[in-house]
Protein backbone atom coordinates (compact mmCIF):
# COMPACT_ATOMS: atom_id res chain seq x y z
CA UNK A 1 0.00 0.00 0.00
CA UNK A 2 2.56 2.41 1.07
CA UNK A 3 4.71 1.29 -1.76
CA UNK A 4 2.06 2.15 -4.27
CA UNK A 5 1.59 5.63 -2.87
CA UNK A 6 5.31 6.14 -2.74
CA UNK A 7 5.65 4.98 -6.30
CA UNK A 8 2.99 7.28 -7.64
CA UNK A 9 4.39 10.27 -5.76
CA UNK A 10 7.91 9.70 -6.95
CA UNK A 11 6.64 8.99 -10.47
CA UNK A 12 4.71 12.24 -10.48
CA UNK A 13 7.76 14.14 -9.34
CA UNK A 14 10.01 12.54 -11.96
CA UNK A 15 7.60 12.95 -14.83
CA UNK A 16 6.50 16.40 -13.79
CA UNK A 17 10.05 17.54 -13.58
CA UNK A 18 10.81 16.01 -16.96
CA UNK A 19 7.87 17.77 -18.58
CA UNK A 20 9.07 21.03 -17.08
CA UNK A 21 12.54 20.42 -18.40
CA UNK A 22 11.34 20.20 -21.97
CA UNK A 23 8.72 22.90 -21.87
CA UNK A 24 9.99 25.85 -19.79
CA UNK A 25 11.29 28.86 -21.58
CA UNK A 26 13.56 29.89 -18.82
CA UNK A 27 16.56 27.64 -19.19
CA UNK A 28 17.61 28.09 -15.56
CA UNK A 29 14.17 26.99 -14.44
CA UNK A 30 14.46 24.09 -16.79
CA UNK A 31 17.79 23.10 -15.26
CA UNK A 32 16.35 23.23 -11.78
CA UNK A 33 13.42 21.13 -12.92
CA UNK A 34 15.96 18.63 -14.12
CA UNK A 35 17.34 18.44 -10.65
CA UNK A 36 13.85 17.81 -9.33
CA UNK A 37 13.21 15.09 -11.83
CA UNK A 38 16.46 13.39 -11.01
CA UNK A 39 15.52 13.43 -7.39
CA UNK A 40 12.26 11.83 -8.21
CA UNK A 41 14.14 9.13 -10.04
CA UNK A 42 16.27 8.61 -6.96
CA UNK A 43 13.08 8.08 -5.01
CA UNK A 44 12.02 5.48 -7.52
CA UNK A 45 15.27 3.69 -7.02
CA UNK A 46 14.48 3.63 -3.32
CA UNK A 47 11.07 2.14 -4.09
CA UNK A 48 12.80 -0.54 -6.01
CA UNK A 49 15.01 -1.36 -3.08
CA UNK A 50 18.20 -0.16 -4.78
CA UNK A 51 19.58 1.69 -1.79
CA UNK A 52 23.10 2.29 -3.07
CA UNK A 53 21.72 3.41 -6.40
CA UNK A 54 19.39 5.84 -4.62
CA UNK A 55 22.30 7.34 -2.75
CA UNK A 56 24.55 7.38 -5.75
CA UNK A 57 21.88 9.03 -7.90
CA UNK A 58 21.37 11.79 -5.41
CA UNK A 59 25.07 12.33 -4.94
CA UNK A 60 26.15 12.23 -8.54
CA UNK A 61 23.21 13.27 -10.59
CA UNK A 62 21.44 15.75 -8.42
CA UNK A 63 24.39 16.96 -6.47
CA UNK A 64 26.86 16.91 -9.32
CA UNK A 65 25.42 16.95 -12.77
CA UNK A 66 22.33 19.03 -12.19
CA UNK A 67 24.36 21.69 -10.34
CA UNK A 68 26.95 21.66 -13.08
CA UNK A 69 24.29 22.21 -15.70
CA UNK A 70 22.85 25.09 -13.71
CA UNK A 71 26.31 26.70 -13.58
CA UNK A 72 26.81 26.39 -17.29
CA UNK A 73 23.35 27.66 -18.09
CA UNK A 74 24.04 30.71 -16.03
CA UNK A 75 27.33 31.17 -17.74
CA UNK A 76 25.82 31.08 -21.18
CA UNK A 77 22.46 32.61 -20.76
CA UNK A 78 21.40 36.18 -21.53
CA UNK A 79 18.49 37.99 -20.11
CA UNK A 80 17.05 38.39 -23.56
CA UNK A 81 16.78 34.65 -23.90
CA UNK A 82 14.44 34.20 -21.05
CA UNK A 83 11.34 34.93 -23.04
CA UNK A 84 12.26 33.38 -26.33
CA UNK A 85 10.50 30.40 -27.63
CA UNK A 86 12.61 27.38 -26.80
CA UNK A 87 10.90 24.76 -28.96
CA UNK A 88 11.79 24.59 -32.66
CA UNK A 89 9.65 23.95 -35.74
CA UNK A 90 9.87 20.16 -35.87
CA UNK A 91 7.86 19.58 -32.67
CA UNK A 92 5.02 17.85 -34.59
CA UNK A 93 7.33 15.43 -36.29
CA UNK A 94 9.01 14.83 -32.96
CA UNK A 95 5.67 14.07 -31.37
CA UNK A 96 4.92 11.56 -34.11
CA UNK A 97 8.25 9.89 -33.63
CA UNK A 98 7.67 9.72 -29.91
CA UNK A 99 4.28 8.20 -30.47
CA UNK A 100 5.63 5.51 -32.73
CA UNK A 101 8.45 4.78 -30.34
CA UNK A 102 5.97 4.66 -27.51
CA UNK A 103 3.82 2.15 -29.34
CA UNK A 104 6.83 0.03 -30.03
CA UNK A 105 7.98 0.16 -26.44
CA UNK A 106 4.51 -0.68 -25.21
CA UNK A 107 4.44 -3.78 -27.37
CA UNK A 108 7.94 -4.79 -26.39
CA UNK A 109 7.21 -4.47 -22.77
CA UNK A 110 4.09 -6.58 -23.04
CA UNK A 111 5.86 -9.74 -22.08
CA UNK A 112 7.13 -8.52 -18.80
CA UNK A 113 4.30 -6.39 -17.64
CA UNK A 114 2.80 -8.90 -15.30
CA UNK A 115 5.84 -9.77 -13.28
CA UNK A 116 5.54 -9.07 -9.58
CA UNK A 117 7.91 -9.47 -6.71
CA UNK A 118 7.44 -9.84 -2.98
CA UNK A 119 11.00 -10.16 -1.90
CA UNK A 120 11.86 -7.77 0.93
CA UNK A 121 14.56 -5.28 0.24
CA UNK A 122 18.02 -6.02 1.38
CA UNK A 123 21.21 -4.01 1.62
CA UNK A 124 22.87 -4.09 -1.71
CA UNK A 125 26.04 -2.10 -1.20
CA UNK A 126 28.12 -5.03 -0.19
CA UNK A 127 26.94 -7.08 -3.13
CA UNK A 128 27.56 -4.28 -5.60
CA UNK A 129 31.01 -3.81 -4.17
CA UNK A 130 31.77 -7.51 -4.51
CA UNK A 131 30.48 -7.51 -8.08
CA UNK A 132 32.47 -4.42 -8.99
CA UNK A 133 35.68 -5.90 -7.79
CA UNK A 134 34.82 -9.44 -8.86
CA UNK A 135 33.02 -10.16 -12.11
CA UNK A 136 32.93 -6.60 -13.32
CA UNK A 137 36.47 -5.69 -12.38
CA UNK A 138 37.47 -4.97 -15.92
CA UNK A 139 34.57 -2.64 -16.71
CA UNK A 140 35.22 -0.96 -13.38
CA UNK A 141 38.80 -0.20 -14.33
CA UNK A 142 37.78 0.90 -17.77
CA UNK A 143 35.22 3.24 -16.30
CA UNK A 144 37.96 4.92 -14.38
CA UNK A 145 39.85 5.33 -17.59
CA UNK A 146 36.79 6.89 -19.17
CA UNK A 147 36.48 9.32 -16.32
CA UNK A 148 40.09 10.22 -16.65
CA UNK A 149 39.62 10.84 -20.34
CA UNK A 150 36.55 12.97 -19.65
CA UNK A 151 38.43 14.97 -17.15
CA UNK A 152 41.27 15.57 -19.46
CA UNK A 153 38.94 16.45 -22.26
CA UNK A 154 37.02 18.90 -20.20
CA UNK A 155 40.16 20.59 -19.03
CA UNK A 156 41.47 20.70 -22.55
CA UNK A 157 38.37 22.20 -24.00
CA UNK A 158 38.04 24.78 -21.31
CA UNK A 159 41.36 26.38 -21.96
CA UNK A 160 41.31 29.95 -22.98
CA UNK A 161 43.31 29.84 -26.18
CA UNK A 162 41.27 27.24 -27.99
CA UNK A 163 40.41 28.25 -31.53
Amino acid at each position, binding site marked *: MIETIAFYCMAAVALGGAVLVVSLRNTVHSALA*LGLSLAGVAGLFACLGADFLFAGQLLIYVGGIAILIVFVVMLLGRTSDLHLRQVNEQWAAALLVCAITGAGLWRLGGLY*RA*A*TSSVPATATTRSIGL*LMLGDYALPFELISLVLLAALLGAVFFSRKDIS
Partner: protein
Amino acid sequence: MSLSLGHYLVLGAALFLIGLFGALTRRNVISILMSIELMFNAANINLAAFNHYLHPAAVTGMTVALFVITIAAAEVVVGLALVLAIYRNSATAYVEDFHLLKG
Protein backbone atom coordinates in the same frame (compact mmCIF):
# COMPACT_ATOMS: atom_id res chain seq x y z
CA MET B 1 -3.46 -2.55 -6.78
CA SER B 2 -0.05 -3.92 -6.29
CA LEU B 3 2.83 -2.72 -8.29
CA SER B 4 4.16 -4.81 -11.12
CA LEU B 5 7.06 -4.49 -13.44
CA GLY B 6 4.73 -2.98 -15.98
CA HIS B 7 4.27 0.19 -13.96
CA TYR B 8 7.96 0.83 -13.85
CA LEU B 9 8.35 0.04 -17.53
CA VAL B 10 5.62 2.47 -18.46
CA LEU B 11 7.24 5.08 -16.29
CA GLY B 12 10.61 4.48 -17.84
CA ALA B 13 9.09 4.64 -21.32
CA ALA B 14 7.32 7.89 -20.55
CA LEU B 15 10.47 9.47 -19.19
CA PHE B 16 12.38 8.29 -22.22
CA LEU B 17 9.83 9.72 -24.61
CA ILE B 18 9.81 13.05 -22.85
CA GLY B 19 13.55 13.14 -23.05
CA LEU B 20 13.39 12.21 -26.74
CA PHE B 21 10.93 14.96 -27.42
CA GLY B 22 13.14 17.43 -25.69
CA ALA B 23 16.23 16.29 -27.58
CA LEU B 24 14.46 16.78 -30.86
CA THR B 25 12.73 20.08 -30.21
CA ARG B 26 14.72 22.29 -27.74
CA ARG B 27 16.75 25.04 -29.27
CA ASN B 28 19.25 25.45 -26.54
CA VAL B 29 22.14 23.06 -26.64
CA ILE B 30 22.19 22.59 -22.91
CA SER B 31 18.51 21.76 -22.98
CA ILE B 32 19.32 18.99 -25.40
CA LEU B 33 21.96 17.69 -23.02
CA MET B 34 19.44 17.78 -20.21
CA SER B 35 16.97 15.82 -22.26
CA ILE B 36 19.61 13.24 -22.93
CA GLU B 37 20.13 13.00 -19.21
CA LEU B 38 16.46 12.25 -18.87
CA MET B 39 16.78 9.43 -21.38
CA PHE B 40 19.71 7.99 -19.41
CA ASN B 41 17.65 8.04 -16.31
CA ALA B 42 14.80 6.26 -18.02
CA ALA B 43 17.20 3.50 -18.93
CA ASN B 44 18.43 3.33 -15.37
CA ILE B 45 14.91 2.96 -14.08
CA ASN B 46 14.35 0.08 -16.46
CA LEU B 47 17.53 -1.61 -15.37
CA ALA B 48 16.72 -1.32 -11.71
CA ALA B 49 13.15 -2.45 -12.22
CA PHE B 50 14.16 -5.54 -14.17
CA ASN B 51 16.74 -6.31 -11.56
CA HIS B 52 14.21 -6.04 -8.76
CA TYR B 53 11.39 -7.97 -10.40
CA LEU B 54 13.09 -10.62 -12.42
CA HIS B 55 16.29 -11.29 -10.53
CA PRO B 56 15.73 -10.08 -7.02
CA ALA B 57 18.68 -11.97 -5.59
CA ALA B 58 21.22 -10.47 -7.96
CA VAL B 59 22.52 -6.92 -8.19
CA THR B 60 23.59 -6.95 -11.82
CA GLY B 61 21.02 -4.41 -12.96
CA MET B 62 22.00 -1.95 -10.31
CA THR B 63 25.65 -2.33 -11.08
CA VAL B 64 25.04 -1.61 -14.73
CA ALA B 65 22.90 1.36 -13.78
CA LEU B 66 25.84 2.60 -11.78
CA PHE B 67 28.06 2.32 -14.76
CA VAL B 68 25.51 4.22 -16.82
CA ILE B 69 25.48 7.01 -14.29
CA THR B 70 29.23 7.22 -14.48
CA ILE B 71 29.29 7.34 -18.18
CA ALA B 72 26.52 9.91 -18.29
CA ALA B 73 28.48 12.09 -16.00
CA ALA B 74 31.55 11.86 -18.12
CA GLU B 75 29.56 12.63 -21.17
CA VAL B 76 27.87 15.65 -19.67
CA VAL B 77 31.23 17.03 -18.59
CA VAL B 78 32.71 16.74 -22.01
CA GLY B 79 29.58 18.04 -23.62
CA LEU B 80 29.46 21.11 -21.49
CA ALA B 81 33.11 21.78 -22.12
CA LEU B 82 32.39 21.61 -25.81
CA VAL B 83 29.44 23.93 -25.47
CA LEU B 84 31.58 26.44 -23.63
CA ALA B 85 34.20 26.26 -26.32
CA ILE B 86 31.63 26.81 -29.04
CA TYR B 87 30.03 29.67 -27.09
CA ARG B 88 33.35 31.38 -26.85
CA ASN B 89 33.63 31.22 -30.63
CA SER B 90 30.14 32.07 -31.82
CA ALA B 91 28.52 33.76 -28.80
CA THR B 92 25.39 31.66 -29.25
CA ALA B 93 24.05 28.62 -27.44
CA TYR B 94 21.35 27.79 -29.92
CA VAL B 95 21.80 24.67 -31.97
CA GLU B 96 20.14 26.09 -35.04
CA ASP B 97 23.11 28.43 -35.41
CA PHE B 98 25.57 25.59 -35.69
CA HIS B 99 25.23 24.74 -39.39
CA LEU B 100 28.81 24.27 -40.42
CA LEU B 101 27.84 20.82 -41.63
CA LYS B 102 25.56 22.44 -44.13
CA GLY B 103 25.61 21.06 -47.73
